[in-house]
């Protein structure tokens, strides 16, 4: 059936040449597609955004942009006025709405994505939303299918402070094969056939398909999300962090669809693993985790955090995605001051989000099997992440990772990481005190998250025996950080159990009283030793923090 015929094919009826999420369009919609496309052709972005804005006020009735226009919007998001002010002013001199084109484009995209997320939750039957989803998926599939283009990112044998080398030359396109964008499934002339760049920026899909460019974009974002240099941070805050979050959200939506509708065709576990390894989300993560062990994933995901890699001499080389984005335009005056707390919060929630997608993928793997790519199992992933976290030197970074972000069911992996990190900390700490070689401490805290009594009992045992109480001797500052980190892991676990069960339920448990006494005793012991051996330390006692957490 040719597209253009007003008929909505329900999901699942899938011809061979048809994409699984394909939805036929009506003539009216096709007309809208064409109108929007012609606005792109004319570089009339104000009108394009205006048209979409007029029709995106409520979720019942909205204009559906075709995939090529969405791609234009995504690219437009990168044309931020912090480095492209003159060209933006030229394109929209009057600026009727007093909004910036890049932000308006982003707001529309986010409106759509939020709508898709809500639709997925409610599980209704809306052909218009499914058509919109189809348009986004066309883009996502094209981005992920090209993961083979992504060479392992360049590493250099050079010693740098945090494993990053900045190179401010934008990589030149090396391949001539950049013309193939997304095949247009509709019978109209897409603006992409002639337009390869938006206000001087290459189309995002073309850009990201250049070898190594996608991974560079991800690393550029992660690295700059904790950037102290104001210009680079503005670049990150205005363009890349929001855009990468959006792309990750889209990959998650695509993955949910894949699980729901495409994985059903798997005949056995083996086949299922094969399908999963080829899924869009797997391709995306494989891009980040190019090594087969999960170690490079950790290096990427914790890029620019303050901790020591095992392989000190290897640094990742980064460069800006678009030319000139690391310099401010002459008329742009930066006025916003970003606090360190703010940066940490946003940066860590992005990192957690990406880790979350990885866990999401791995939970689908049948037990006893392993993906072909990316290779690590869920256990290995968690182990690697907590191994790195246990080495964090900066307590604020550590805290921001565990104690920010939303506590939805989607963050089930955080308690696992917290527990495993606690194990690492335990064995490090014991080693430094007793010179004992303890390989692994077994904890069952996460197993007991649904059993408050057992959970509290296990914690009480720790605190009775002395939970990270330092020895009677000169205490190094690094040891204080370790103690602090252990407390944060504890808090993270409590935060999660509170989310599951509610603070009052925990407090009214019969074991709670013993637990409180044990923690208080532990705080007193720590205080006594610290006041003698490290009088300047400002380690906060754990008890007030715990009570505060359970109260609110």
């Amino acid at each position: 059936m040719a597209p253009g015929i007003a008929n909505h094919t329900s999901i699942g009826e899938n011809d061979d040449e048809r994409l699984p999420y394909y939805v036929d369009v009506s003539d009216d919609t096709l007309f809208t597609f064409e109108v929007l496309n012609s606005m792109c052709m004319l570089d009339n972005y104000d009108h394009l955004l205006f048209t979409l804005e007029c029709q995106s006020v409520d979720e019942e009735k909205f204009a559906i942009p075709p995939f090529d226009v969405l791609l234009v919007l995504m690219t437009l998001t990168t044309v931020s006025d912090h480095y492209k002010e003159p060209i933006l002013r030229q394109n929209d001199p009057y600026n009727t709405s007093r909004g910036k084109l890049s932000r308006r484009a982003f707001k529309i995209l986010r409106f759509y994505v939020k709508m898709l997320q809500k639709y997925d939750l409610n599980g209704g039957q809306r052909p218009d939303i499914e058509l919109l989803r189809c348009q986004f998926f066309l883009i996502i599939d094209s981005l992920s299918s090209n993961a083979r283009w992504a060479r392992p990112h360049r590493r250099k044998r050079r010693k740098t402070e945090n494993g990053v080398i900045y190179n401010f030359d934008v990589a030149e396109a090396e391949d001539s094969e950049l013309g193939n964008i997304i095949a247009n499934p509709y019978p109209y002339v897409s603006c992409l056939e002639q337009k390869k760049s938006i206000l001087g920026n290459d189309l995002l899909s073309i850009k990201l398909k250049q070898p190594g460019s996608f991974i560079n974009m991800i690393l550029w974002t992660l690295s700059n999300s904790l950037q102290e240099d104001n210009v680079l941070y503005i670049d990150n805050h205005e363009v890349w962090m929001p855009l990468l979050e959006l792309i990750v959200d889209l990959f998650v939506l695509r993955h949910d669809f894949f699980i729901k509708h495409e994985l059903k065709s798997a005949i056995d576990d083996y086949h299922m693993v094969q399908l999963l390894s080829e899924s869009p989300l797997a391709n995306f993560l494989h891009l980040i985790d190019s090594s087969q062990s999960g170690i490079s994933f950790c290096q990427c995901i914790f890029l620019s955090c303050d901790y020591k890699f095992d392989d000190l001499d290897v640094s990742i080389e980064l460069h800006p995605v678009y030319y000139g984005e690391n310099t401010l335009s002459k008329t742009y005056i930066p006025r916003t001051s970003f606090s360190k707390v703010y940066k940490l919060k946003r940066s860590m929630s992005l990192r957690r989000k990406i880790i979350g997608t990885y866990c999401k993928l791995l939970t689908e793997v049948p037990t006893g099997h392993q993906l072909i790519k990316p290779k690590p199992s869920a256990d290995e992933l968690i182990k690697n992440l907590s191994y790195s976290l246990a080495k964090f030197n900066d307590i604020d970074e550590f805290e921001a990772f565990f104690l920010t972000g939303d506590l939805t069911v989607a963050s089930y992996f955080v308690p696992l990481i917290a527990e495993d990190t606690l194990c690492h900390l335990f064995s490090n700490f014991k080693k430094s005190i007793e010179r004992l070689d303890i390989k692994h401490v077994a904890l069952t805290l996460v197993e007991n998250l649904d059993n408050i009594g057992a959970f509290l009992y296990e914690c009480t045992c720790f605190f009775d025996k002395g939970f990270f109480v330092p020895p009677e001797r000169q205490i190094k500052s690094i040891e204080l950080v370790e103690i602090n980190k252990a407390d944060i892991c504890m808090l993270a676990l409590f935060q999660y159990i509170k989310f599951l069960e509610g603070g009052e339920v925990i407090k009214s448990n019969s074991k709670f009283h013993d637990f409180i006494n044990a923690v208080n005793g532990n705080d007193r012991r720590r205080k006594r030793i610290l006041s003698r051996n490290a009088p300047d330390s400002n380690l906060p006692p754990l008890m007030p923090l715990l009570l505060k957490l359970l109260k609110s």
Partner: protein
Amino acid sequence: IFMEKSPLTNSRQNDTLCKLSPFDTMINAFACYQDQTEQFAKYFICFILDRKVYESMFCDTIWCSKIYKTFSADDFMQQYVSLVHSQDYFLHYRLIKLIPAAQDLLIRRLFSEGEFLAGEQARIKLVQEFNDLFDKRRFQQLLYFVLTIYGSKYMPFGDTDVTLYFKDCIADLFNASASDVELSLLNGFLSIFIKIPP
């Protein structure tokens, strides 16, 4: 600043040197005061109409509409008209861009003078205002007036007689060699309104 009449219309200057915080921190801080003061609606209006806030990445209809829903709509409008002059269409437009749900109410408030505003009658009033601004050659106000009213139940999108009339008026003046930039912008927007399905 709340002592004057329509203060937001009268004083548009701002402190260009003050440092700003990221918007998402601000909204969290802001939402804390929600139940603590009766003036909250007023502060909220001033806050979202501020240009820097309005254009920031995270100030969107979703958040603004969420807060808007916590007010009684009539009280909100009462506060709003005490802050903004009734012909300040520039700010009216900004408000309805942020809170589309307020559009019908705002138009009713501005043009009804107390009585209930029925469909046909409303259209006549709106056309009157158009003619008035048009004859006085206040084109900037005209531009924002048109942007404010479209999409409401009183002035739907699509190929309507009123829109064609507006377009004719502008085309006439255009031919009479008036070259105000607002007119050509209006012309463009009206063409878009015609194409949007009602």
